């Protein structure tokens, strides 16, 4: 997946590039490298390992001098993490350096062709073909060479290139992977996303697909990749205060983000919970008769909650499709409203599924946390989750705010089709207003959840069970545990256990059961009984005041009462804390779990 940064200006590039890499680390962190263009020509240093290791290597050598350069932090797709496979890559002349985020699909064919022409390859990656293509196409103008090289490439890229003969010049191009220009005073930046730039400038230009840009300290010029036709662009100003995304005393970003949820949820409701604002969500879309939610990972689990919300509140059929699978479904005319759920707005699987659905004629609505991301350009309408930047790789506040957005959507659809009468709307508005306080109440039980987590810290496998709208909570709870603590966990609809999974129950297999006081509560009590009867340790998440539950489960965490349809929100917060503490007790790297990256821009 990877993060890219480029700089050109009056200052020494090395320090700026390293700092940018630190800010991009959440995009990938198995190797890193930089290339600086200076008086001694192009100098490259790259290492497998974290950005810190790269820094250490740099401090042992003399600093790379130069006023422009590019740097890269990698999340491996082709070729294992190693010094040789790290970006940036140089060509046979050693004058050109390339950093790339994406996948070159026809790299094997191109590699053969280039080898045949005498080019020497030093890595196992797909990216390396790019630098040799540029080498081949270079006739004195870097932008021209890059554009011609990229026309031969099939696949996706955000790429930044520099040439030793053209100090101060950087060329970047984009196809399906994000690339942003930062406009400074007498200096310019490239970056994979805004957080890497925010310390230097708030004026940015988002490159669109099929565009190439050339930057120098004096400014920038954007053109079309296909024919280098000029595309004049004006910078926009970014609102986010990324500085606030520092840990501020919390041990991990993820813990901070879990604790931010009351505010994030309140912000999600602000100015959107009124009648007129809810109606406005579907403006311009044709009447909604069914909904298909496309998402990946935690967003898909939020989508599962959304499905229950849409069916119960708005009474429209709704389904969730795993985005990467959507394109393999039969290509029938798409009548449903497609809701693309993506925290980053850049998740490639989800974007591709969205594009496919539009090809099939769907209306579309995107739900994302990042204004200006790719999904905002693909979907007809948008709902923003407004949770602020989420740095921890595992979703926390973006998950709960996605559920808030889906609830607003369900209310909007219900209003439009008459299923939600004014009194029902008022009821849900009041219930939603109680969410920030309910989540805060769960957070106040942090110490208690830590104590429970101590008991479970060394387990090898956990079942999470729930029914109805809390089945997705169980799925998300298991997912969270897996992601950050590397403990295997599996979620089951509680009614399913007896159809096979019961066989694994026993003292070695603890169970986390979600049993809030709703219509399915009696059945959940029976399921809990089934598990404890077979010796499984039991942690039950229930409703405040439920003394019965405390009798049947070894450990309980009780959350405040909210409408059952909204209960996944406080329940999930409890499960987030549970997963967090287990991961922390096991010494895991909570904010950057192994093998994962925050925004998945590959397929």
């Amino acid at each position, binding site marked *: 997946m990877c993060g890219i940064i480029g700089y050109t200006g009056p200052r020494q590039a090395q320090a700026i590039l390293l700092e940018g890499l630190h800010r991009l680390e959440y995009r990938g962190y198995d190797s890193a490298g930089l290339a600086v263009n200076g008086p001694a020509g192009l100098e490259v240093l790259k290492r497998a390992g974290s950005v810190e290791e790269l820094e250490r290597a740099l401090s042992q050598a003399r600093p790379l001098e130069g006023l422009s350069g590019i740097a890269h932090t990698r999340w491996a797709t082709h070729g294992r993490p190693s010094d040789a496979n790290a970006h940036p890559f140089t060509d046979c002349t050693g004058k050109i350096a390339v950093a790339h985020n994406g996948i070159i699909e026809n790299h094997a064919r191109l590699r053969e062709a280039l080898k045949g022409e005498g080019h020497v390859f030093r890595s196992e990656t797909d990216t390396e073909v790019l630098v040799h293509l540029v080498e081949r196409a270079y006739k004195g103008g870097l932008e021209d060479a890059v554009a011609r090289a990229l026309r031969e490439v099939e696949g996706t890229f955000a790429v930044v290139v520099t040439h030793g003969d053209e100090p101060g010049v950087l060329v970047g191009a984009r196809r399906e992977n994000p690339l942003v220009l930062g406009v400074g005073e007498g200096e310019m930046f490239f970056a994979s996303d805004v957080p890497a730039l925010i310390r230097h400038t708030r004026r940015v230009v988002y490159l669109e697909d099929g565009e190439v840009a050339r930057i120098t300290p004096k400014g920038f010029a954007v053109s079309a990749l296909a024919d280098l036709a000029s595309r004049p662009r004006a910078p926009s100003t970014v609102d986010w*205060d990324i*500085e*606030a995304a*520092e840990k*501020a*005393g*919390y041990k991990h970003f993820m813990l*901070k983000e879990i*604790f*931010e949820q009351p*505010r994030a949820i*309140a912000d999600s*409701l*602000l*100015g959107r*919970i*009124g009648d007129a604002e809810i109606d406005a969500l579907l403006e311009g879309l044709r009447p909604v008769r069914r909904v298909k939610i496309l998402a990946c990972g935690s967003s898909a689990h939020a989508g599962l909650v959304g499905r229950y919300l849409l069916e119960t509140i708005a009474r429209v059929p709704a389904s969730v499709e795993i985005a990467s699978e959507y394109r393999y479904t039969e290509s029938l005319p798409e009548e449903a409203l497609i809701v693309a759920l993506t925290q980053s707005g850049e998740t490639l699987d989800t974007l591709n599924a969205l594009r496919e659905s539009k090809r099939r004629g769907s209306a579309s609505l995107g739900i994302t946390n990042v204004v200006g991301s790719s999904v905002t350009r693909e979907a007809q309408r948008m709902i923003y989750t407004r949770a602020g930047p989420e740095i921890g790789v595992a979703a926390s506040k973006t998950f709960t705010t996605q559920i808030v957005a889906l609830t607003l959507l369900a209310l909007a659809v219900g209003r439009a089709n008459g299923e939600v009468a004014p009194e029902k709307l008022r009821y849900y508005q*009041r219930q939603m*207003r*109680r969410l*920030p*306080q*309910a989540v*805060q*109440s769960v*957070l*106040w039980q*942090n110490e208690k959840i830590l104590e429970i987590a101590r008991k479970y810290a060394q387990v090898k496998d956990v079942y999470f069970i729930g029914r109805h709208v809390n089945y997705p909570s169980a799925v998300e709870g298991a997912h969270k545990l897996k992601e950050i603590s590397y403990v295997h966990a599996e979620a089951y609809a509680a009614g399913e256990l007896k159809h096979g999974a019961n066989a694994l129950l026993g003292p070695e297999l603890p169970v986390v059961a979600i049993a809030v006081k709703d219509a399915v509560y009696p059945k959940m009590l029976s399921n809990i009984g089934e598990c404890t009867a077979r010796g499984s340790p039991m942690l039950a998440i229930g409703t405040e005041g439920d003394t019965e539950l405390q009798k049947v489960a070894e450990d309980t965490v009780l959350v*405040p009462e909210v409408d059952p349809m909204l209960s996944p929100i406080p329940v999930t917060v409890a499960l987030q804390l549970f997963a967090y503490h287990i991961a922390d007790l096991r010494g895991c790297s909570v904010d950057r779990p192994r093998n994962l990256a925050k925004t998945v821009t590959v397929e």
Partner: protein
Amino acid sequence: MGERIFLTESAKDWTDFPPRREAKASSAPRGIKAGGSGRGRSGRRRLQAGALRESRSAAGKIVSGAGTAPKGFTRPSRSERGRGHISSMRAVILAAGEGLRLRPFTLTRPKVMLPVAGRPILEYVVEALKENGITDIHMVIGYQRERIQSYFENGRRFGVSITYAVQPKQLGTAHALLQARQGGAEGPVLVLPGDNLVEPDTLRALLERSDKDANAMVVTFSPNPSKYGVVKMDGGLVQGITEKPAASASDLINTGIYLFSPKVFELAEWSVRASRFDLTDVLQALIERGEKIQGVEIEGHWLDIVYPWDILTVNAKILQRTAAKTAGVIEPGAIVEGPVTVGKGTVIRSGSYIRGPTVIGEGCDIGPSVVVFPSTSIGNNVTIGPFTQVRNSVIHNNVSIGGSSYVANSVIDDGTLTRTHFVTHHGDRLMMVEGDVIPVMDLGAIIGDSCTFGPQCVIAPGIVVGRRARVEGPTHVTRDVPNDALVL
């Protein structure tokens, strides 16, 4: 930030350190007198009867009583601020304390995070520092620290830079100060409590003190000094501090605001090793060693919150400087009069009448036909049903008050819900808090967070309802309600 306690290995006894110095003769420094009203200050200890203290001028007259409105926090202009503002100066805010006497409000937040006029006390302290050019702030936190960290984060939102040090057990102020020690950091350090509202002018007076080589502390007059740390001064220098003396020789008391040279950390360390955990012990040690401590005198009103009802008086004071500002929606037919701040996303519905000074937070739904009288602060995400009157009260976040209700002279904490016909009677009551007995006048209800009240609950004057209580209606509540109780 980890928990850090710095105790060195040396076996030296603290009485050996440092060698005594000859006391130098010094010229009498300018005593800094604040003229007129309008300068609040912090207080370190509380008085018994109510929070509004009266101050004395040098002539011994009572300068002002409850009737006079102070000018509030005036912001000095750039030229007024003058020299002596070292922007590299660090400030250490002691914010680890619990605030036992402010329960139930301090069951879920540290005292420093108590909201006044819509903002936590600690924010006013941070603002006073920023106004004086001090942006390098270290906060010593402990009790319920996530509340502080979640709100302030790294301080950028407030124009300052904040780092945190955790005091794992609240042993005392010198112990707290030690947590903020940073190896190698030089320069003087401003130490102050986070739980007293302090004005920028007070800090300015301290920073502009005449003798830059001496340590300094802010002292103020009190009509009842024997309840506090009484300061004996001579020629502008502090000669001694006595805690709660039976007979006090002076009427100057310690506000807890200090300006120390970096040497104080070593001295605090020795002090803690000798199990003397308070900064006053460290001051005594400094004095005994002949170190100069300049006493900077401040006049004016105090703004200290000791008991829950003090919140109302201090809230009223701070609201004096409210500006009329609307970021929300005022429907046609709703009247907003006077200095009223309405946050974004809030709707004031038709027929409502809001009179200032009043602050209303974000995302609220007020009305229709709701009446709000001064001096009232309403938090975020608050719903008030039709035909309700709210007067001189503090309502925290996420509260819902049902229609046809009357809330006056009351404080209601986060997330509490009431149904219709919720009435707070106000009147006189003998309040009992942590062993203190205090008569309070015209007090409404003190209600903790996450409570629910059924329809037609009437609360007698001065009743304290704890956290998470459930009161079914109809009820006349005539006795305090403990936490988690169910009243039928």
